[in-house]
């Protein structure tokens, strides 16, 4: 991929800042999301909560379904591929949608390698739990980062942990003398040049969204106040009692995250949120955030 193409891909993510990207499983949901003010939709066959419930191997969605959703909306369309599954990525690129999510929500296809994203023209977003993971994905060609959180739980605790971890590491890096960066980069598996860049910028060089467990307007505003650039909501919308109302409310709360009166307004009359899961109740091998490295 040439530099200019990568730049355009980073810049598309910049245009999504302050917005909400919503998981949708069919045309009807995609239209509800667009109408509610989503800045993009993630087209997939099952939301993470159902993937978690069903177990088995979760793969890329049926391309025909993704194509239908692409036809139905005018906002950007994203789709997930398995970590390391570069052929699923080739297929999604051939489908000519807007963004690929190399996602831990699907069952990894490769436990050693993530996709070499520099070989693609289509942009990639990747999940991360800490600064090192985020910068390794950027070094591989990701144009956008999101926290992993713990998808399909309706529990925001892991997204908060990942965002706080990244912020703490960025602050450490920014405060340390430059001769300590080599050791810090080595210890955290960070490409040295990118460590210097983060030190200079005081943040990631690309857009960073929150994802994994966001279920309420308050969750979205919390993640925004912690410094992320926008939010993904997966199961949180279409597993709730009144999806359209909740989708609109999360869009409002994300845009006005710093205005408690408006977040309050957005939090009224939403009906039941999706049922949540305590992280400690999930068997270790079913934790999605641990997939990829």
């Amino acid at each position, binding site marked *: 991929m040439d530099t*200019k193409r990568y*730049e*355009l*891909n*980073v*810049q*598309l993510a*910049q*245009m*999504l*800042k*302050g*917005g909400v990207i919503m998981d949708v499983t069919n045309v009807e949901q995609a239209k509800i999301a*667009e*109408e*509610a*003010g*989503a*800045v*993009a939709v993630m087209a997939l066959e099952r939301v993470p909560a159902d993937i978690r419930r069903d177990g088995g191997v979760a793969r890329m969605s049926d391309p025909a379904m993704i194509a239908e959703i*692409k036809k139905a909306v*005018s*906002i*950007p*369309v994203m789709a997930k591929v398995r970590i390391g599954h570069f052929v699923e990525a080739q297929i999604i*690129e051939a489908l*000519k*949608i*807007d*963004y690929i999510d190399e996602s831990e929500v699907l069952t990894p296809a490769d436990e050693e390698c993530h996709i070499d994203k520099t070989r693609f*023209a*289509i*942009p990639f977003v990747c999940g991360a739990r800490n600064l090192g993971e985020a910068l390794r994905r950027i070094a591989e060609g990701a144009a956008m980062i999101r926290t992993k959180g713990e998808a399909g739980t309706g529990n925001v605790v892991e997204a908060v942990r990942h965002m706080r971890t*990244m*912020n703490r590491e*960025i*602050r450490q890096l*920014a405060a340390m003398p430059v001769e300590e960066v080599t050791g810090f980069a080595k210890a955290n598996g960070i490409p040295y040049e990118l460590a210097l*860049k983060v030190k200079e*910028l*005081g*943040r990631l*060089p690309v857009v960073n969204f929150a994802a994994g467990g966001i279920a309420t307007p308050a969750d979205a505003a919390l993640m925004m106040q912690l*410094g992320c*650039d926008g939010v993904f909501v997966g199961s949180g919308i279409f597993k709730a009692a009144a999806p359209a109302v909740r989708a*609109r409310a999360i*869009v*409002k709360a994300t*845009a*006005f995250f710093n*205005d408690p009166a*408006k977040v309050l307004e957005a939090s009224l009359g939403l009906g039941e949120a999706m049922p949540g899961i305590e992280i400690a109740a999930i068997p270790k091998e079913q934790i999605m955030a641990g997939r990829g490295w």
Partner: protein
Amino acid sequence: MNRAEERPPSGVGDALGVLDLQGGVCEHIDHLLRLGIEARPVKQEKDFDGLAGLILPGGESTCLARLLRIFAIEEIILRRFREGMKLWGTCAGAILLAGKLVGERPHLSLIDIEVLRNGFGSQLESFACEAAIPKVSDAPVPLTFIRAPKILEAGEGVEVLLRIDDWIAAAESPDVLATVFHPELTGCLAFHRYFARKCGLAPGGKADLDPTWDKTSWTRLARII
């Protein structure tokens, strides 16, 4: 700085605002600051005070339109516009300002242009190029199109600033500027300077290309620490 004499009577202030609901807000503010202009994000009524002009940035037009409506910002923009505040829409912002949209109802309807949303296709069709726009800059202007709309037609009283093939990329009326590309995503300050002058302000500096700009310059307004 004595800008008062240079300002036409329609001018209502010394600052420029960038509508801060969603999208490329920091990028525009960064450009305005480089021209020595007082710039601020605009989110609620009080933020409009003293604005000579407002930029509607790129983002997703459906999202922006929805937030404009539910938080009643639409009426504030229309009122301030009648009082003399100038407007510039980039990409999604141009969609919000258009008088006609292909296949859907227009939003603010403040400039007589017809716009086709997402005129090129997916992100794989996004591109960058360069064009001469004599009214705006003596040098060729770098242009960045991201899932860009197309202006199909410009009505009476609207001047076309840049035509490419059979579509229009930039147009203006006396009070409104519309560009389907993103000058804020390049190192070129020409369009921001042009808009500032249109608003009756006196932007600083002379060079259109700022060599100190790079693609991460926006991040200085979105630091974690």
